[in-house]
C-alpha cells in the first residue's frame, strides 16, 4: 500500500494527465460532477455523492454513433468508431463503491451479447481508481446490496483521510498506473486505512436504510408485485421528470436520434428516461399511458426484471442519489419499504 499527501494530489492529477485523460469529481457552479480534469479545476474528492454518477465515462449522456454525409443526392456513411483508435486512454478517478458496483451492473447489459462496441471501447481504455467512503449519510443504503463502501474494487483502490490519499493497486491496469505515478507515492497507510474502515463500517451499521428487506423481490413474485395496488399511491406525486433516472448510476436506457447538419446527418444516442411520457411511444401508440405504469416499470426493472435476467443482481446499488434528488421525495427506498418484505416495518 502506498500513500500520497493531499497537498501533492494536484501533481498526481497532472502526472496522470500526461498520458491519459482524467475524469474526476470537479466542482462547477456550486455542484460536483465528474468532468475532464484540467489545470485550475476544483477537484472535490470529499464529495460523497456527485450529482451525476460516473457512468457517463462509459455511457455518456449523448454519444455520436455514426454520420451520414450528403452531397447532392449521394449519401456516404461514416463510422465514427474508426476514430476510437486515436482516443486517449482515460483514468476514472474517485469512484465510490456503490458507483463501482453500478459499473458492473452496466457491464452486464452493455458487454453481454450483443456487445455494445461504443461502451466496450470506452471501458477497455479506462483505468478505474475507486475511493472508499469515510462519511456516509442517511440516504446511503449500499449495504443492502452487499456493497462494502470501505473497500471498493477497481483497478486501484484509494482511501482518503485528513492528510493522505492511500493507494492500492488491484489489477494489471492498476499496477501500470501505479508505476506511472510511482515517483509521487510513498509506502504505508495500512493502519490508517484499517482504522478508517472500522469507523465507517460502524456508521454504516447505524444508517437508517442499511437493513432494508428485499426478500419479496423475486421472479416468483413478479405478477403479485406488478399488480400491487400500492403503485397507484406511491406514484401519485411523481412529476414524470427524469431526475431519478439521470442521476442513477445504473439506469441505462437510451434513445437514438438524428441531427441534421449542414453536411448531412449525425446519428447519436442519448439518455432516455422510462419516466418520460413518450418513452414507450411507438408507431402503434403508447403502451404505458399513465405515470403509475412508468413509475412501476422503473422500480420493477431495478428490483425484479433485471435480477431475473442477471443472476439475482439488483439494478440498484443504494447510492441514494434519487433519495436526495427527487423533487417530490419519492424514491426506491419508499418502494422497497412498501413492497420489499415484512422486515421493513
Amino acid at each position, binding site marked *: 500500500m502506498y500513500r500520497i499527501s493531499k497537498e501533492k494530489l494536484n501533481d498526481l492529477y497532472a502526472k496522470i494527465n500526461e498520458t491519459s485523460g482524467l475524469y474526476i469529481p470537479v466542482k462547477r*457552479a456550486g455542484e460536483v460532477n465528474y468532468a475532464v480534469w484540467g489545470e485550475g479545476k476544483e477537484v472535490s474528492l470529499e464529495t460523497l455523492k456527485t450529482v451525476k454518477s460516473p457512468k457517463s465515462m462509459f455511457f455518456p449522456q*449523448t454519444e455520436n454513433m455514426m454520420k451520414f454525409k450528403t452531397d447532392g443526392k449521394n449519401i456516404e456513411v461514416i463510422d465514427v468508431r474508426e476514430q476510437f483508435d486515436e482516443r486517449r486512454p482515460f483514468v476514472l478517478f474517485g469512484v465510490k463503491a456503490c458507483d463501482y458496483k453500478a459499473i458492473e451492473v452496466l457491464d452486464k447489459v452493455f458487454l453481454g451479447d450483443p456487445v455494445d462496441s461504443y461502451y466496450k471501447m470506452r471501458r477497455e481504455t479506462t483505468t478505474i481508481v475507486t475511493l472508499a467512503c469515510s462519511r456516509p449519510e442517511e440516504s446511503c443504503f449500499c449495504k443492502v446490496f452487499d456493497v462494502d463502501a470501505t473497500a471498493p474494487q477497481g483497478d486501484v483502490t484509494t482511501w482518503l483521510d485528513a492528510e493522505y490519499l492511500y493507494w492500492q493497486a488491484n489489477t494489471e491496469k492498476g499496477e501500470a498506473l501505479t508505476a506511472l505515478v510511482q515517483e509521487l507515492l510513498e509506502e504505508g497507510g495500512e493502519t490508517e486505512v484499517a482504522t478508517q474502515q472500522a469507523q465507517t463500517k460502524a456508521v454504516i451499521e447505524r444508517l437508517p436504510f442499511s437493513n432494508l428487506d428485499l426478500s419479496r423481490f423475486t421472479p416468483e413474485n413478479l405478477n403479485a408485485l406488478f399488480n400491487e395496488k400500492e403503485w397507484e399511491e406511491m406514484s401519485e406525486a411523481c412529476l414524470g421528470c427524469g*431526475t431519478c433516472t439521470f442521476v442513477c448510476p445504473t439506469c441505462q436506457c437510451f434513445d437514438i436520434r438524428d441531427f441534421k447538419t449542414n453536411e448531412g446527418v449525425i446519428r447519436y444516442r442519448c439518455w432516455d428516461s422510462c419516466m418520460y411520457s413518450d418513452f414507450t411511444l411507438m408507431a402503434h401508440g403508447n403502451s404505458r399511458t399513465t405515470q403509475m405504469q412508468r413509475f412501476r416499470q422503473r422500480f420493477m426493472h431495478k428490483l425484479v426484471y433485471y435480477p431475473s435476467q442477471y443472476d439475482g443482481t439488483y439494478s440498484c446499488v443504494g447510492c441514494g442519489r434519487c433519495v436526495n434528488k427527487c423533487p417530490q421525495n419519492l424514491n426506491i427506498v419508499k418502494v422497497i419499504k412498501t413492497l420489499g418484505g415484512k422486515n421493513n416495518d
Partner: protein
Amino acid sequence: MKEVEMKMLERAKALLESGEVARVVAWKKGDFCFDPSPAVFESVEELDTFVYDWFCGANLSKYLIQIAKKEGKTAVFLKPCDTYSFNQLVKEHRIDREKVYVIAVECLAKLDVEKMKAKGVSMIESVEVVDKDVHVKTAYGEETLYKPDVVLTKCETCNKTHQAKDEEIILHERPERDVNRFAEVEKLEAMTEDERFAFWRNQLSKCIRCNACRNVCPACSCVKCVFDNPASGISAKANDDQFEEQLFHIIRAFHVAGRCTDCGECSRVCPQNIPLHLLNRKFIKDIDGLYGEFQAGETTEGKTPLTSFTEGDVEPKDVFNGEAK
C-alpha cells in the same frame, strides 16, 4: 407549525367525513423528518400519514389539473405562493374553480434540506424552528442554524399573500418585509455581456435535461411540450450541444413569460441547483418595467402582458437604449 398542522388535519378529517369533499390534496410523511411528499387523501384512515411541516415546500396547485377532474370536490391546502399558480391555472381553464375547495395555510418560509446539509449537518433526526433559529438534532449531536440561511431560495424574497381561499388556517401572519426579489437579476444586468454569458454558460452546462423544472412548473401545463414533440423541430432528450442547454431554458422562460407567478419551484427541484428562477424573473422584471407592474396569478381573469399591448409600447431598440425605463 405543529398547531397549524393539527388544525389542518382536523379540517381535512371533517371535510372528508362530511363528504363535502371527495379528497384532500396535501402532504404525507416521508422516511425522515425532511422528506414529505405531495399526496392525495381519500379517506380519514389515510390521513394517518398527513403532515405539514417546515419541509412542505412543494406547490400542490399543478396536481389539481388532473385531480380536480375527478368526480366530486377536491380540497387543497395552498400556501400563499401556491395560490398564484392556482389562479393562473384557473385563468387558463386548466382547473375548474368550482370543483376545488381551497384552504389557505400559513407558510412562514420553508426549509431547504440541501442548504442545511451544505452547512455540514448530516444524519438529521429532527428539526425544530423557533423564530429565526433552526434547531437540528442529528446522529452526531445538536446544531442550531440561522433560518434565513437555510430557507428555500424561493422563500428568501417572498412577500406573497393568499390570492385564493375558501377558508384559511393562519395562526401567524408573516410580517411584510422589505425585500427586492430582483436584486440578483439586477446584479446580472450590471455585468458585461461577456460576464453574463460566462455566468449562464457555467450554470447551464450543469443542466442534465431531466425536465424537473418543466414538469413541476404550473405554467408548463401543455398537453404535449414542444421539447417532447418531434414535429416541433426543437425536440430533444438531452443537451447534445451548449446551444441546446440554452435553447431549452430560453424557450421555456419565454413560454411562461407573463404567466409565471414566480413560485420558484423550478429552482427548488433542479438537481444541479441552477438558479432557474433568475431566468423567469428577468421576464417579470422587464414586463414590470416596460409595460407596468403585473403579477401573474393575482386574478383569474384578464389578458397577460404578452397577449395585450398599448399603441405606445416601447420599441425593442429602445429597451437597450435605456429610454424605456
